[in-house]
């Protein structure tokens, strides 16, 4: 699964630690998601969508359909 987390974070000038704090996960988890090594659960994806004020599909894209 691809995602725009790194771009969205950079646009807001947030560090991984700051984003992790908002999402209530560790910095390592944010890093793993940004690198595509770990796919977040649906609740975490919703939380990220709420934080950025976007829909889940705007942040996360399924590689098979994109």
């Amino acid at each position, binding site marked *: 699964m691809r995602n725009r987390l790194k771009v969205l974070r950079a646009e*807001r000038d*947030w560090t991984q*630690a*700051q*984003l*992790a*704090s*908002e999402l*209530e*996960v*560790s910095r*390592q*988890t944010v*890093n*793993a998601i940004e690198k595509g*090594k*770990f796919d*977040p*659960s649906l609740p*975490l994806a919703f939380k990220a969508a709420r*934080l950025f*004020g976007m829909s889940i599909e705007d942040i996360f894209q399924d590689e098979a359909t994109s």
Partner: protein
Amino acid sequence: MNDPKTRPSDWATSNKRNTLRLRYWTLAWVAMMAVAAFGPKYIWDFATLPTILALLMSMGVGFGMIVANKRYLQGLDELHQKIFLDAGALTLGVGLVCGLSYELLEDIKLISFEPEISHLVVLMCLTFLVGMIFGHRRYQ
């Protein structure tokens, strides 16, 4: 627009508290195990009542440690829960296969000594440690 602050989040604080709680319960359990193991020989000369009490207290603190470990695990974020689960699954498999094979070694007369449960515990601890290290490296 939201602006995340640099303060530690409630999650991080809670995680730290769970880790400390697990550490204290584990230390207490190890101490109680030592009392139950060495007390009968070195302190109360194998008197039945204190031996039973020490064993029951050791088990009670052990269950406290299990609960603390469960809370610790529930407090982790999803990536760390997955790393923990993978390492736990590896440990369970290695413990089962190697533990039974080790026990079999004596039954089929390939070793002359009695297999010690402590050897299995050490193997499981090392396996879990290796599993956690590889899990963390995989998601770096």
